[in-house]
């Protein structure tokens, strides 16, 4: 190791950081007696950057040399940045030595396209292979599946990696064509569909023959860049929903576009759309863990997520007739719909009410966010319906600080109803 490796690491980590996937969970790779590492169950964030994002994997590009010229990408051909490339051995050494010191959960390896897709993919696969076979490394490996690479190489990648990902990046093909002339959806969907088939196939076979090697046990994911092109949230969430349903993706990541380029093809943003990004993640959670359908979150009338309140609150404010919900009676799925009640709280409520009626103080102690929840629930000793389910009044109470609250109370004294 020397100064040169340090410089490469700085360049190639910097170029990889806009890929927001950081997950190291969801795999099932056990360690061997003489091996190094494991990837079972939940992921671990070993550190956090100053922007509050999890650092779980050594996330680097193999190289930032690239033959493509995608406007949204910092490594595009026409951009004037320092270029570098790791050797196979350098990536392996960094991974092993960081892992042994408990800095990371594993490796996230991506790359610019040099020469062609197969040439690039072949090198990514080789690094994973050396780690798995020569170093008995059983930590987490996330590889990029390079669009346009052959099925054979993608297949081999699946045998060594825990997770593979192909990024759609731009949420519609029309916009993609504008900002990335060399790319098209067909090239991206091709490895994605191949992986879907192979993952299911291996899983089926493993049920019958236990010694079947695992194939991308943590599944595949993708990333959508938000705010660089004009697609609305309805479009984006429908796309995500179809990726979950049809490509069986484990995760869709949303990355608020950071104005890294002065490229004419992209809008000049002053700040990355961080709140919108956050709301999209919340909506994504509602789809995956709360039993919501896309059209319950956004529709033709409200095609964009409400930036002021979270999507569940927005849903409740649009459907006041469904509330209040009685926490002592309602089934679990309905309790999940109360704003401010998460999966854990809902489970606690259902478990605890078997022992007796739940009162307001119980809910408070269980950690339910009553600031938001109280307008929408009934418990044994309190019913907040006297507050009235006036969506606009509730919205005001929630979004505006204390001072504004007294004003709205005074107003209601002389209210028109």
């Amino acid at each position, binding site marked *: 190791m020397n100064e040169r490796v340090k410089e490469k690491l700085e360049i190639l980590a910097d170029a990889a950081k806009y890929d927001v996937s950081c997950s190291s969970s969801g795999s099932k790779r056990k360690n061997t007696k003489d091996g190094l590492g494991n990837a079972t169950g939940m992921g671990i964030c070993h550190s956090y950057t100053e922007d509050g994002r999890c650092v779980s994997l050594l996330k680097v590009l193999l190289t930032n040399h690239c033959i493509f010229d995608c406007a949204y990408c910092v490594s595009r051909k026409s951009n004037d940045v320092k270029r570098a490339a790791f050797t196979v051995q350098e990536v392996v050494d960094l991974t092993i030595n960081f892992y042994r010191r408990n800095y990371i959960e594993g490796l996230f390896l991506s790359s610019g396209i040099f020469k062609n897709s197969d040439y690039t993919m072949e090198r990514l696969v080789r690094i994973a292979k050396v780690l798995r076979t020569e170093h008995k490394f059983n930590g987490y490996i996330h590889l990029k599946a390079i669009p346009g690479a052959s099925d054979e190489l993608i297949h081999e990648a699946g045998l060594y990696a825990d997770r593979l990902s192909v990024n759609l990046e731009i949420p519609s093909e029309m916009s993609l064509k504008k900002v990335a002339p060399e790319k098209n959806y067909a090239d991206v969907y091709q490895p994605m569909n191949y992986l879907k088939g192979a993952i299911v196939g291996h899983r089926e076979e493993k049920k019958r023959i236990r010694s079947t090697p695992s194939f991308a046990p943590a599944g595949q994911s993708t990333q959508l860049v938000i705010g660089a092109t004009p697609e609305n949230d309805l479009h984006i969430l429908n796309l995500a929903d179809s990726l979950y349903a049809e490509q069986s993706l484990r995760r869709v990541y949303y990355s608020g576009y950071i104005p890294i380029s002065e490229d004419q093809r992209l809008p000049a943003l002053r700040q990355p759309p961080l709140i919108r990004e956050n709301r999209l993640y919340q909506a994504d959670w509602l789809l995956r863990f709360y039993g919501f359908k896309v059209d319950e979150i956004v529709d033709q009338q409200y095609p964009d997520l409400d930036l002021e309140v979270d999507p569940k609150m927005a849903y409740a404010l649009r459907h006041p007739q469904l509330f209040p919900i009685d926490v002592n009676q309602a089934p679990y799925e309905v309790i999940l719909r109360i704003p401010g009640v998460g999966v854990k709280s809902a489970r606690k409520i259902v478990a*605890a009410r078997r*022992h007796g009626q739940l009162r307001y103080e119980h809910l408070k102690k269980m950690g339910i966010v009553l600031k938001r929840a109280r307008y929408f629930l009934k418990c044994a000793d309190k019913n907040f319906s006297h507050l009235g389910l006036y969506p606009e009044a509730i919205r005001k109470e929630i979004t505006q600080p204390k001072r504004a609250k007294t004003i709205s109370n005074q107003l209601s004294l002389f209210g028109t109803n």
Partner: protein
Amino acid sequence: MTFTYDGTFEGLLSVIFETYRLETTATAIVPAEEWQGSLFETPLLVATKEEWAERVKVGIKKKGGKKSLRLLEHCFLSEFPEVGKLIHDFVRKLMASPINISDNFGDDTVLKLHQIKKKIGREVHRMHAFVRFQRTQDDIYYAIIEPDFNVLPLLPDHFEKRYPAQHWLIYDGRRRYGIYYDQQQTEFVSFADDHALQYRQLPANMMAEQEVEYQVLWKSYFDSVNIKERKNPKLHLQHVPRRYWKYLSEKREQF
């Protein structure tokens, strides 16, 4: 009545057994060495008896399942002054109830214990995340920690599975004992002189040749993945509270 014991989990269970034997209940249960003398009462010191402790354990498992016993074992490691009494109250309520009460979150004792367990779990998870090993010249991977709670006994399983083929030592600098794994098994260890172990950074003559290089590489990696446009110090501190920074080589200014 106030009881004292030797500060071990088995000691606490012996006290609980004794309260049943004496047909009384405890108002406070504290480790003998933490007892602050009082004018008005003399606490009863209960000697630890393995047999009594075992019988209480069996009782807890019978009524509340293995999970309840684990809940109490984990909570005990919090070292909170009131935890002895809470565990006592839990056992009493569990024994008196016809059904398992361990998920009755409407009950104060049960809820408090679950909250403590959550704190312990969070601290264990932080140790999984924030332990930073330094490689020594004799090829032992060494880390110092000072956890808020006494969570060292909960750590071996995770690190054994992850690093079965390397020697490692995790040392609790505050409680002054460690866990040492020699590629066969993990043992609790303590040292008469732990002076050298107390340094955040091992002395140069103890460190393996490339150790500092990797620390520097890790820090430069950490600095490079930051996205300045997204800076969010509040969120950063929420994830990595300042008291943990001392473990983290990436937060260090110089090496």
